[in-house]
């Protein structure tokens, strides 16, 4: 383990951000839903001493706001936000790598906070503002974070890059002049295999100076 691995610090915050989408919540929904008939609207049932809405198990209509646009789809409640983005809406910037909230390649923003789209059910992302890497360019112009990535050669194979770009943007938005500690915290949830961290650090330093 890294001695100062900040992922642990982030756990409560991230769980809170993804309220209602914890693994336990997911299991509860999935476990109960097997018994109910295919319905389009949630049915309220008693489970674990409270009334919970039960969706599915068949496809249910869902509506999303992604990059400011409305998207509709009929999806099973077990579909993740990542799979909805990639397979339903052809927004393939966010990548599926570890598929369980370990590597950050699927990072998107939900109401301006970074989330792992692989570990968030699409059904829970309804009514939220979802922002993906595809929205950062203004016409042909790269976002300053993207531009800094290009100039500092912060991508090699590029598969982790969209997740890093989103995580960097979120971190810079929150800390326009990030301290090393801010950087460590803000990017602790993303991993790269080719070894582009040096370029990413330089890109952040550049944006931090110029401002995003």
């Amino acid at each position, binding site marked *: 383990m890294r001695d100062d691995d900040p992922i642990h610090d982030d756990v409560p915050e991230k769980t809170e951000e993804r309220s209602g989408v914890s693994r336990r919540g997911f299991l509860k929904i999935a476990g109960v839903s097997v018994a109910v008939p295919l319905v389009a609207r949630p049915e309220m049932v008693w489970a674990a001493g409270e009334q919970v809405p039960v969706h599915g198990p068949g496809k249910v209509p869902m509506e999303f706001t992604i990059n400011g646009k409305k998207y509709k789809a009929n999806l099973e409640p077990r579909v993740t936000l990542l799979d909805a983005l990639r397979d339903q809406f052809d927004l*393939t910037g966010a990548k599926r790598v570890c598929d*369980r909230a*370990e590597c950050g390649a699927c990072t998107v923003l939900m109401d301006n906070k970074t989330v792992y789209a692989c570990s968030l059910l699409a059904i829970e992302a309804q009514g939220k503002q979802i922002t993906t890497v595809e929205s950062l360019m203004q016409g042909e112009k790269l976002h300053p974070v993207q531009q800094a990535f290009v100039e500092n050669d912060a991508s090699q194979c590029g*598969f982790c890059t969209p997740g890093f770009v989103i995580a960097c943007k979120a971190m810079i938005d929150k800390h326009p002049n990030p301290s090393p500690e801010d950087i460590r915290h803000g990017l602790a949830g993303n991993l790269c*295999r080719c070894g582009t*961290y*040096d370029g990413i*650090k330089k890109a952040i330093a550049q944006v931090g100076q110029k401002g995003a």
Partner: protein
Amino acid sequence: MPDYSWPPEDKRTLIGKRITRVDSPLKVSGQAQYTYDVHRPGMLYGKILRCPYAAAKIVSIDTSAAEKMPGVKAVHVIQGPNTTIHWSGDEVVAVAAVDEATAEDAIRAIKVEYRKLPHLVSDAEPPKGAAEEQGPLSVDDIDDMLDNQVPSQQMVKQIQDYGMTEKADERGLRMLKSDGASDAVLDAVRAATVHTDVAAKPHSNYQKAAAVTVGDPDKAFSEAEVVSEGLYGTPVITHCCLESHGSTSEWTDDQHLFVHMSTQNVSGIAGQMAEKIKLPATNIRLHQDHIGGGFGSKFGPDRWGIATAEISKKAGGKPVRIMLERDAELKVAGARPSAYARVKVGAKKDGTLVAWQSDSWGTGGPGGGGSPPIPYVINIPNQRKQHTGIRNNIGPARAWRAPNHPQAAVITMCALDDLAAKLNLDPLEFFLKNIELARPRHEIYREEFGIASDLMGWKQKWHPRGQGGSGNTARGMGLSMHTWGGRGHSSHCDLTIHPDGSVELKMGTQDLGTGTRTCILIVAADTLGIPMNAINLQIGDTMYPPDGGSGGSTTIGGVSSSTRRAAVDARDGLFAKVAPALNAQPDQLECVNGTVRVKGDNSKSLSWKEACSKLGAVPLTVRGNNPDPSKPPDLTNSGVGGVQMAEVEVDTDTGIVKVKKMVAVQDCGLVIDLKTAESQCLGALIMGISYALFEEKVMDPTTGRMLNADMQFYRLAGLSDIPELVVHMMTGKGYDERGVIGLGEPPVISPGAAISNAVANAIGVRVPFLPLTPDRVLSALQQKAGA
């Protein structure tokens, strides 16, 4: 004869400069399309049922329930009853369904009965007496020997003594030749006795290769004044490509297959699929825009790639996507063999190395793995070496950046560092004292050590072993050196200049994120005197001229050489058409800054567009090749040297190692793009820190399964693990004129050894095995305290 040679430094406009990677904007904006992103109309999703046992025989398979499930479009048995499975996670049945979840449900509905067999997943030191002499050799064994630079006569003797497991076909012989086999070795393979009976028999898990003796080690050890003995090694690690292996296959008609595949070998896949799916290679089209990492693990279609094509056929030719799940990616799709050794090394009091002895072992799964080329780089005059390969059930090994070299560097450089400590010598002085043993590149290493030492501040920071500071924080310094071949592979491209001035270049290569696109454009644009973005480069398709697989650092030498020859020929073809309009001879012309002009004379000049209009109605197309002895000189070369230094801080209470600084000084002949070349080195240092500190494929001896097949417990270094990194590329006189040499492998070889040596320097005791995890560091400290 046109002059194809690389332009001299003062004539280069782009080559060797710091040029920004051309596909970065696509990557940072999420527009770069990877195989995993390909979504074909009507695409089905495939999943694979995998064997949970490390060794088992399949007794029966019942897919009936899965076949009846709504949404399931095809079920395909990959390995049927009576097949023996040799590793957990091996493929048994594939399913294609309308969505992933349905495919997963279907996988769960399949019933397979297995008969479990005994397995071995350990790669611990072979028990005494367990190892058997090497039996007949396979083509792969010979390939391993080539990789280990076993002398030709010795290889011939082994082939004659042991025979071969199979008759080598022409393809196998060609492969060996291209990997450097001498004619004597090829003749020996042709003439060898074939023992298919032996090959079919179950063999011992422990295969001892013939001992190798150089000089007179007994005499040398008896005369050595100082002898150091130690245990060193590196475990099996995985490739962990972020884009997992996989493909999307579709039958465009019953005789044509269209494949999108995540591969390092765009031009080579169709030929490997053809026989298995009973189609001529000509009828298989393969396309790939971008690849999310390969590192040596993506050269073949793999069993699952064949299955994808087959299940697509069963589903009426519909596109089927099968990308590996993360656990499968880590279990079956790529592992670097382990290597361990007990080493004894002797020197004179002044540090002069005299003798080496090693008993090494390691595993690469069912194949046993290659033996690391030790002693590495430093050719000690008297040696005795014995290697035992362990064949076990951990899953197959694949080439991992610089096959066998990082292991060899750890075993050699750590053993030599321990000897230097015993001699009370600064390892830098010790290595320089013996640098002549690193012939023929000793002068390169000498120069590189000087530069690295300055960049690291070695002289100020180094201290004798164990004097790393008081309290619970110890600092230390370590170094290592490495080599690699890296000659350019076979490469072909078509360059077309159109009468409207547009230019296109087509090549069946691939860009692994190493900067291949950027480097091809640099060479073409530099030669034609036009901007890089004026050239439309198309790669990654079997429609384009075939190119070699991207492995062994062979791509840059290949693609830059074929591009240079094509661009020179195209340029000269254009000159021939333009010369009359400028009242000049073709050989008086030059292309500069988007113009074609009489050399040095701006008054006799045409813009690029005007010049191209002189081509008439038909575009000018030329083919560039590498190698091409008809168009000298040889533009690529082989053999590089590099050195690295590491500074670490060790918390002696917790055993946590932090790398504080690393320096890499690297030679790769003529650098095409300094920026992406430096990135290659930076990336290699980071990957090196990752495998030095964190990475290990952990196998459970009881179940035979991988215990950490996810990215939480298969640790990769994160951003905060990365310290200040300094990269210095050797360029200019003495380097540039050697031609272009590959860079993918060399800089990833030394980090493990350099970091291990720095830790030993800090805490005063060797941590024998990578990764240098807290438990291993603490246990070494405990042993030291108890000693």
